[in-house]
């Protein structure tokens, strides 16, 4: 069991499809506590990545991730552009030259990618951002790997943790990003960035587990 270059490409393709499908949903989530663009931003970015598929189809995982990163940085803008850009940039650094990675390596990659987001955005857990979906997902993945769980199970557990983390943002008071300007009024709404993070990790689990 491992994750190949082709698995990574299939994942990015699936994410592009899922983000497109959820574009309006993410815009809606970004309306009461943001500026109604998160879905449009992410969709623009992943569409642009799809436009690069030709030039990366025969590349190593590191190159694929770095290309995705540079594309997101140059097309998304907003908060999510630099954040997801850094996420894939860090993932690319950890996978330079690799054509295949193990689930153990994936856990390390994901941890580094999350660290990149934290470094860029300086958010901590409990501040109602994508960090609240990604952090439990990384922890669950690491734990599953440490417990010797199967790749499929580890991915499932990680995606489920992301989903829980996403839902946990609903009662939170936003302290970072645009939602923080609303103060108490940010409470009661699900964070759009945490939602896109869940969609992205859930796609990995589904695609790589062949569901």
């Amino acid at each position, binding site marked *: 069991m491992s994750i190949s270059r082709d698995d990574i490409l299939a994942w990015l393709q699936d994410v592009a499809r899922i983000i497109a499908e959820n574009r309006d949903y993410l*815009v809606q989530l970004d309306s*009461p506590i*943001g*500026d*109604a663009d998160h879905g449009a931003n992410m969709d623009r970015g992943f569409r642009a990545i799809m436009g690069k598929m030709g030039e990366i189809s025969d590349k190593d995982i590191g190159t694929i991730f770095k290309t995705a990163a540079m594309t997101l940085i140059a097309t998304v*803008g907003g*908060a999510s552009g630099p954040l997801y850009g850094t996420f894939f940039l860090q993932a690319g650094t950890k996978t330079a030259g690799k054509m295949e990675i193990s689930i153990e390596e994936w856990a390390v990659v994901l941890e580094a990618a999350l660290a990149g987001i934290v470094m860029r955005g300086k958010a901590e857990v409990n501040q109602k951002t994508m960090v609240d979906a990604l952090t439990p997902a990384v922890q669950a993945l690491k734990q599953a790997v440490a417990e010797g769980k199967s790749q499929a199970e580890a991915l499932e557990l990680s995606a489920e943790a992301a989903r829980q983390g996403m839902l946990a943002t609903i009662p939170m008071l936003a302290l970072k990003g645009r939602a923080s300007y609303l103060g108490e009024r940010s409470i009661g709404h699900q964070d759009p960035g945490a939602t896109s993070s869940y969609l992205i990790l859930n796609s990995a689990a589904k695609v790589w587990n062949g569901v």
Partner: protein
Amino acid sequence: MKKLINQPEDVVVEELQGIAYAHGDLVKVHYNPNFIVRADAPVKGKVGVISGGGSGHEPMHGGFVGMGMLDAACPGAVFTSPTPDQMLEATKAVNGGAGVVHIVKNYTGDIMNFEMAAELARAEGIDVEAVITNDDVAVQDSLYTAGRRGVGITVIAEKISGAAAEQGRSLKEVADICRKVNAQGRSMGMALTSCTVPHAGKPTFDLPEDEMEIGIGIHGEPGRVRMKLKSADEVTAMLMEPIIGDLPYKSGDNVLLFVNGMGGTPLLELYVIYRKAYEIAEQHGLKVVRNLIGPYITSLEMAGTSITMLKVDDDLVKLWDAPVKTPGLRWGV
């Protein structure tokens, strides 16, 4: 959605084409990455001043490119901060050898994208100083949060920094005067209606016929509190008092008073607001020595207003009065 547009995804590029057709004497438009730059850039030996942000705030920033104000502006998608490659290319295009000031409104996205651009520009040997505007008193200021939004003061900071750069001041001096403007300015805004982001297709929030939002930003986002409609005089007091109390401004201060329209509020109403704002300022012993009234930093077609007040000294007044020749602000030439 009622808008005079074609496809939502083409709005920004088509706007840029319109600007290129209209103002070719003042600016050049670059596509891919998108930015608007002074027709005569780079001006040798002059500090470059650039800004950028999501589209939908017109005339800010693109309308402020030209002699005496911005050297370049980078428009993002509607309400979405632009990407680092735009700011990097704009920085290179305006660098006359004396360095470049980035005027950045305090939003997580703007900060991060400009930061990346500054890193890349510095790596190419260009001196970059970033100044962050964060004048919105509706937002609590705190080290542990994203802090205050940059709103109306940005327009004034761009004018004054541009004038300082035009005078030949150094990179540090231009950045410092920009920081001073931000430090001495405060703003607050309110909305009577929401606005519709083209790609969203419906208003960002619903506001009943008898309610308004107080403490909004400039991205069509809801404000700090929602309340029943009040009269223009009451609304003006609700914006002015927190502004005056925050700095605080002191009796005897000279100020510039800026009454801004959010896009859908007619000038008629802005003068009614200005009237009361002026009277409140005078009641506090503040002397309004300069003013600006009109839609300069907008949220698409949102109805509402924001008030910005800047404490000025002679130097700031002179820089404000200095000639400016841009599509959106013009005097002295």
